[in-house]
């Protein structure tokens, strides 16, 4: 079958700007996008730069944007994204500097992974292999599937505006050790992750969950660490106040008390934050939008609040 592949090209040695180049080629019905790109490089245009190794979705080398979102090109068949021969656009990953064409610079990615101390920390020197039972490790199987391909980082909406954010891959890796039964630095790890650029800067946009080729679900690990950090007593964050106020509101009213949520998350001692809220409040008033002094309660709200209280105490027992 014929495939139409449009590739984003960039060579910093010769060009100051990137450009798109179209290729048409004959490929087998079951060809992957990587097969197509390799064929382009070998038979049509030897100057095309790309990175790949295992070709079996194990090594994590060939993550690229396909039609706008990151995929392992060795795992994605052309037919899958272009069932009727539509043009397939391939670009380098987002949120990474480009070295050449489809090859990205992974240095910052690795330094962030290193920043979370990705190894088990103990207070003693194990004399032999430090074994954990199978049962105590099964909950980590999902997160251990990570092949460090960078697809989640490519799509992260928080990293796009703030390159200092630790990011989904390194945070998922952090969770792998926070939740390891052998690790003895859980509290200090969570303390560090609770700081700026850590777990609270995630927008919960689900982009990382959506593109991960190994179902690692980084965002779910990040929000789990928020809860673990709170359990460890790290409560001096607006993130904590936000979650707490939200839960209280549902426990008390069954619905959200927006006004209280805004005030409590900002913090009653945060004067500039409160002035900021007041400005928006006053502007809304001028538009005739008066914030309700009390939340809009559901009918028989006591039924909701009793469920909330019951499940809250169930969770605390666990």
């Amino acid at each position: 079958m014929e495939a139409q592949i449009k590739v984003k090209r960039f060579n910093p040695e010769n060009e100051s700007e990137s450009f798109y180049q179209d290729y048409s080629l004959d490929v087998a019905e079951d060809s992957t996008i990587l097969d197509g790109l390799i064929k382009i490089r070998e038979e049509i245009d030897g100057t095309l730069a790309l990175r790949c190794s295992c070709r079996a979705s194990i090594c994590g080398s060939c993550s690229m944007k396909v039609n706008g979102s990151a995929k392992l090109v060795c795992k994605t068949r052309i037919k899958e994204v272009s069932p009727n021969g539509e043009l397939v656009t391939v670009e380098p990953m987002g949120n990474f500097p480009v070295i050449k064409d489809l090859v990205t610079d992974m240095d910052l990615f690795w330094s962030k992974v290193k920043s979370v101390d990705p190894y088990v920390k103990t207070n003693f020197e194990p004399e032999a292999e430090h074994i954990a039972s199978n049962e105590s490790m099964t909950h980590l199987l999902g997160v251990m599937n990570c092949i460090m391909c960078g697809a989640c980082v490519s799509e992260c909406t928080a990293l796009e505006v703030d390159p200092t954010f630790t990011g989904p891959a390194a945070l998922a890796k952090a969770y792998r050790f926070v939740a390891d039964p052998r690790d003895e630095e859980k509290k200090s790890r969570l303390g560090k992750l609770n700081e700026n650029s850590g777990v609270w800067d995630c927008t919960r946009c689900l982009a990382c969950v959506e593109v991960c080729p190994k179902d690692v679900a980084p965002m779910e690990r990040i929000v789990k660490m928020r809860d673990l950090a709170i359990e460890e007593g790290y409560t001096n964050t607006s993130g904590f106040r936000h979650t707490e106020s939200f839960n209280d509101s549902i426990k008390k009213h069954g619905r959200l008390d927006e006004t209280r949520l805004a005030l409590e998350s900002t913090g009653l001692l945060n004067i500039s934050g409160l002035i900021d809220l007041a400005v928006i409040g006053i502007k809304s008033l001028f538009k005739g939008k008066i914030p309700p002094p009390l939340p809009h309660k559901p009918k028989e709200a006591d039924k909701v609040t009793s469920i909330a209280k019951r499940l809250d105490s169930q969770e605390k027992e666990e």
Partner: protein
Amino acid sequence: MKFAFYPGCVARGAAPELYKSTMLVVDKLGIELEEIEKAACTGAGVLQEKNQKLGDVLNIRTLALAEEMGLSIMTICSTCQGVISQANHRVVNNPEYLEEINKELEKEGLHYSGKTEVKHLLWILLEDIGIKTLQDMFNIDLSGFNFAPFYGCYLIRPSDALGLTKNPERKHSLDIVIESTGASATDYAGKTKCCGFPILLINQKNSLKMVAKHTGDAKDEGADAMVTPCPLCHLNLDGYQAKARRQNKRGKADLPILHLPQLIGMAMGLDPKELGINKHLVSTAAFIKSIKTKVA
């Protein structure tokens, strides 16, 4: 056509113009709504961080209440839609978990079979009303206008819970509806990204960078206004646009942000003021004037 209505907290609180414009538009569309008055907040993903089971019980309870009414649910908020869909997806694919949740619901005499459909108004326009029928209800041709779609994360991801594979049109639903009015849908990178609202009270600097980027990019691509099916996105993109654009040197707040039913209502010929388009914090005066000039 009748639906069990889940308006969500924001339409009942900070964005009353969404509630009002929805009511005006569904009336014209011939959709009858019966509000699920006992429904709780979805938890918006925040409650779920602390206690996912509580979030799931509350959302499955909403689905069970609709089942009792014998109706599918209509939502008007991307976040509500996404969070209820995610809970539904978890129980439908895990019968043991559904049973566990049902045990909690039985205390209130409720039971969920796993069959309630929950749809955003945007999807209902496409799948239940149909674009052709919708266009027949339009009285104003909005050609010449350029509207930037802004979906809201939870109406786009995760695709399995939202049924995007089974209904691929949902991925482009807002573009399709905008184009059905005769207007062009602005093509820009931010349309499926995060508006920044979830971190507004946590990391305002980053949140406002998102607002500035998406509204600034859409404006650069020629948008006359932005349209969103998510009132939470609206709160940030409209309410904080002035500060965000100023702080990030992206010019003045000049991009009106419309709720989805406001766009539909305008195309139907309803009065922009009746639809509450003048209630937004970013000035819509010039925009309303240009719509009125077009009608005249």
